[in-house]
């Protein structure tokens, strides 16, 4: 199991690379008989918050122009998506194209619900960043196309930090902690909003510690939460969580942490760049106060480990519009629109040549330094079952935050964790 995406997304490459490769393509010539699709409608499921309206509109227009067919975007909530997707894939009319989380892709590839995209890979995927494409490959076959990737940063309220007299953003974990402490002492703001179950951040911390969440036991995977390295990551989490009034048994979406931050009385939170949008929607005035910085690591030369979350686009094996679906992917993943998505959302695009789109994007510039040391949860089909509610890792986190020792908490959830990893497929 390779879980580190020792990516080719070099920090330097990302920040400095000039638009050497940009600006080409987008409307390349296409097969004949393009208007054979007139009257058809392609259904595309995208996740809440993943693609801006502007992008959807542009892609839909380009798609219609080229194929004469329409595309209908349906926005899905993350909550309960696996059940919804599984049943949908079994139906007569599944969504033709859908976004699927990179960590969930192997499990779905194994079910036979995803169409083989080998020819698409040959046609447009030659220069996809290899490490980002890893989750789309199962058993040597290409079951999805990498779409975008992102990692978490610290979003902070400049006004509150200035009020506390802090001039510079922190470079190490200890500095970060000290700054938050200062905010707690000098202002009446909550220094950081960190709910007990922001487990993607916790996964990032384990990656930073070089810990593995599962280990092999014979031919099975079993829990590795008892590893002292995991415990160390959890201790870090706990230390910062103690500064927050956020509930210990909730994740970052209930309530939306962006919304809490938007009220203007929270010093910082750890989240995705786009979550700033939620804050701004809750409170327009917060917009000019939001700043971003890389999550500081133990030492100044190495940022904190991050979970490199991302999404792939897949085609349902049961879709009756296979060709049209691939036409859509060719447009959506073309340099023009892949670049537009990177630019609008500040996410890492699927090929290095498009990284120039991130230049000048404050979020991407804060995220990039950590991306190189990013990783994912184990890319094994067995993993998908672990993330189903109630996620044992979340349970582990809450248990530790409520006073159990990491070892006790690990022992508490081990059975459930192992059961899920061993679940019959």
């Amino acid at each position, binding site marked *: 199991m390779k879980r580190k995406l020792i990516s080719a997304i070099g920090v330097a490459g990302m920040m400095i690379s000039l638009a050497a490769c940009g600006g080409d393509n987008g409307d390349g010539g296409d097969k004949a008989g393009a208007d054979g699709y007139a009257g058809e409608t392609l259904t595309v499921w995208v996740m*809440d918050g993943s693609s801006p309206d502007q992008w959807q509109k542009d892609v839909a227009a380009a798609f219609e122009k080229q194929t004469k067919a329409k595309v209908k975007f349906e926005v899905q*909530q993350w909550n309960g998506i696996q059940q919804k997707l599984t*049943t*949908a894939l079994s139906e*007569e009319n599944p969504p033709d194209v859908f976004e699927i989380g990179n960590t969930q892709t192997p499990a779905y590839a194994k079910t036979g619900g995803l169409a083989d995209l080998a020819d698409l890979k040959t046609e447009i995927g030659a220069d996809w960043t290899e490490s980002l494409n890893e989750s789309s490959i199962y058993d040597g076959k290409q079951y999805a196309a990498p779409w975008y990737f992102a990692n978490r940063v610290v979003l902070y309220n400049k006004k509150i930090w200035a009020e506390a007299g802090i001039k510079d953003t922190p470079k190490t974990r200890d500095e970060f902690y000290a700054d938050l402490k200062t905010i707690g002492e000098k202002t009446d703001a909550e220094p950081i909003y960190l709910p007990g179950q922001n487990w993607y951040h916790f996964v990032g911390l384990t990656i930073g510690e070089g810990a593995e969440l599962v280990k092999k036991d014979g031919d099975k995977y079993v829990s590795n939460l008892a590893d002292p390295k995991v415990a160390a990551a959890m201790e870090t989490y706990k230390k910062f969580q103690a500064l927050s009034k956020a509930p210990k048994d909730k994740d970052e979406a209930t*309530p*939306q942490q962006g919304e*809490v931050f938007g*009220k203007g009385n929270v010093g910082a939170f750890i989240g995705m760049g786009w979550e700033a949008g939620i804050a701004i929607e809750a409170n327009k005035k917060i917009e000019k106060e939001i700043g971003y910085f890389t999550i500081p690591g133990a030492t100044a030369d190495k940022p904190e480990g991050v979970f490199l979350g991302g999404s792939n686009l897949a085609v349902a094996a049961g879709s009756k519009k296979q060709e049209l679906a691939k036409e859509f992917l060719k447009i959506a993943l073309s340099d023009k629109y892949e670049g537009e998505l990177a630019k609008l959302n500040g996410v890492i695009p699927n090929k290095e040549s498009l990284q120039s789109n991130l230049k000048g994007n404050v979020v991407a510039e804060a995220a990039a330094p950590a991306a190189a040391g990013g990783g994912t949860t184990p890319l094994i089909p067995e993993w998908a079952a672990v993330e189903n509610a109630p996620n044992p890792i979340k349970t582990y986190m809450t248990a530790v935050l409520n006073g159990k020792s990491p070892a006790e908490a690990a022992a508490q959830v081990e059975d459930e964790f192992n059961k899920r990893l061993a679940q019959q497929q």
Partner: protein
Amino acid sequence: MKRSLFGRLWPNVTAVVLFIGFVFPVYWMFATAFKPTGDIISEDPVWFPTDVTFEHFRKATGVDHFWTYVSNSLIVTLCAVGFALVVALAGSFALARMRFKGRRGFVIGFMMAQMAPWEVMIIAMYMIVRDASMLNSLVPLTVFYMMMILPFTILTLRGFVAAVPRDLEEAAMVDGCTRAQAFRKVILPLLAPGLMSTSLFGFITAWNELPLVLVLNKEAEAQTLPLWLSSFQTAFGNDWGATMAASSLFAVPILILFVFLQRKAVSGLTAGAVKG
């Protein structure tokens, strides 16, 4: 018999306390829905919405397809309740008024049907509907909702049918009515309060149903209000104003129906008893 001051006072005091306890959650829902956000998330609760806003209601009804959900919910609920009443009326008449072999079996059968834990059979129902190519349609919802309320409706109506004095029916038949005519002209009018109060339960059950519609209908065109309310809660989890506005809108039809029908039902029940 004279009661002490205390003896007269405590029932009233208890009644007031209970009244507050039962009404407060309902009141708080409406009050929150009308309050500006600043008043909702204030350190000290604002007990009465002094400056009323419709902002939250606008947000709640501004969701795409809102009116589709409303009409779907109404169609499904009314059809389910209507069918259930017709089917149950026939059955309950047989059970209350006739003697036949196996009657006991039918009664126990419906009692057991009433216990069906529908929530745990969702996947079986999903697969049946899927394999019949009936997903994203209101038809399976309607018939399943009808079935969910049918046993209760039969068993309850049976009590109402039995409560109609038999002499009336017989008198009508002596006057030359057939049994069917006697039923229509004499029993049905007397059953009206019973039908109304029984349909209330059906209405509430069908109006509330969430787990089934969640798996059966993925397309917005075929979804109902409970899905809207629950997705609203996911999307606006922290926006209590909007969530409470949505809850209020969802609850209002039932509240109105209930206050209206319950009075009739209870008075019908007691009036019948007194008259007899």
